[in-house]
């Protein structure tokens, strides 16, 4: 479960629900997010003939979620081999989409963040994207010092994969980058590092 944070930028994922008014549903899902899509769209089967689902199994490849999603029989189902290829396809769809399209994103936080970051340049307000966090709590973290990104961070502090500093993972989030911020934990007393906590498994 996502706990509420005092940090205002920490995203909140309200959960998937189908927008009955939308003319078109564009769903980007990753890993366990498939289950959120199945739950939401099973409750609104009439929407499926106006629905495009882009799915990348990622870490849950062996679970058969792709078959379950395809069995929903949406108008378009596209299985992507990786989040990167899914985002390429998503970008093409966003560039030709019209208003009346509702965008949905579900999966790990890193994936949801990447979908939102892809939609922002198309003028989509992030509040209008329906999201649900499923699967790992792993974070995409930007080192505020060298600006390098480290994917799938599960513990804090951790070692920056680019500059090697020991970074404390903050709830401070950049929507543009789709990443949490990591800050050097031993800047004042080099070498004094608090115990590692596996907070984001």
């Amino acid at each position, binding site marked *: 479960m996502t706990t509420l944070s005092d940090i205002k930028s920490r995203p909140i994922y309200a959960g998937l629900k189908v*927008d009955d*008014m*939308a*003319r*078109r549903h564009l769903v980007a899902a990753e890993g366990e997010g498939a289950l959120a899509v199945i739950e939401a769209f099973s409750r609104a089967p009439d929407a499926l003939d106006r629905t495009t689902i882009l799915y990348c199994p990622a870490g849950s490849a062996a679970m058969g979620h792709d078959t379950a999603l395809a069995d929903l029989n949406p108008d378009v189902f596209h299985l992507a081999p990786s989040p990167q290829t899914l985002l390429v396809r998503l970008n093409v769809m*966003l560039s030709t*989409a*019209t*208003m*009346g*399209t*509702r965008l949905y994103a579900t999966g790990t936080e890193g994936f949801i963040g990447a979908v939102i970051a892809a939609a*922002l340049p*198309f*003028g*989509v*307000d992030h*509040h*209008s994207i329906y999201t649900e966090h499923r699967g790992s709590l792993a974070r995409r973290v930007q080192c505020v010092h060298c600006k390098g990104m480290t994917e799938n961070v599960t513990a804090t502090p951790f070692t920056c994969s680019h500059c090697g500093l020991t970074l404390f993972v903050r709830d401070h989030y950049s929507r543009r980058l789709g990443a949490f911020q990591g800050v050097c934990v031993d800047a004042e007393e080099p070498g004094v590092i608090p115990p590692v906590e596996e907070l984001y498994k």
Partner: protein
Amino acid sequence: MSGGVEITVRVAEIEQATASVKRFRLASASGEPLPVFSAGSHVVVSMDDGGHRIRNPYSLIDRAPDGLSYRIGVLRTPNSRGGSIFMHERVSVGSELVITMPVNLFPLIRTGRKHVLVAGGIGVTPIYAMADELRSQNAPYEVHYAMRDEANGAFAAELVERHGDKVRLYRDDAREIIRVEEMLPNQPLGTHLYVCGPEGMINAILAGGRAAGWPVENLHSERFLAPPGGAPFSVALAKAGITAEVGPHQSLLEAIEEAGVDAPYLCRGGACGQCVTTVLSFEGELIHNDHYLTDEEKASGTKIMTCVSRLNGRELVLDL
């Protein structure tokens, strides 16, 4: 002052745009340039009607290239509480008025990929400024402007002159009606819609937007309300230890100000939320007229917007 920094202006030019609309050019009295504003901004114009203060919000049409004047458009409303009649009958070239700093409650969403501007009647004033700003930024936009008839299209000719075929005009007398269901499909993802005009039109356009599947985040409107009158009541200000009477044609805010209390306000039209005040107790029924508080807040009986809302009852006690 609660309304922020005030600027003294002198009326430099009055143009009778239509039978019921006058455009006023308000020039900086000090000769210093007036603040730059973003399209969609309004100022509150303060009028001195023989010791009685009238304050009305008006959207800014434009700022002269030299920065020394603003233009506003004022519709003479038959059920005016005095503001628009004052502007039409008592203000002449050379008159001095006091305005607030521009405030924008109706901004363009700059991340939008396209902008659909919809105006009805005098609601064209902020839309006029928005269209100019979008043109100068070379952003994709279209303008839809509905008017009663050609004689009442105060801004039609100028809009067409400035924006050409991006403007579509609708005349009520020719039974031309804005068909939101034709305007909204096939707009590119990331389009934002802005509507300003009569209440019924705003509601129809916003409802049409939702029906076309547009997210509420892409639908924007602005409506300033004239404070509706009602039965008189008394207001007790707990902190100030003052009790004042609110007359039938007076707003709660005006009565508080007349009693000498500098209460918070910004738009004076039920839109911005600056004047939200805690209600300590009341006898009777709160009449909420604003577009700001949520239904839950209104039902809670603990908050009121003094600019447009009032009490139907005997006494209201406020935390002021």
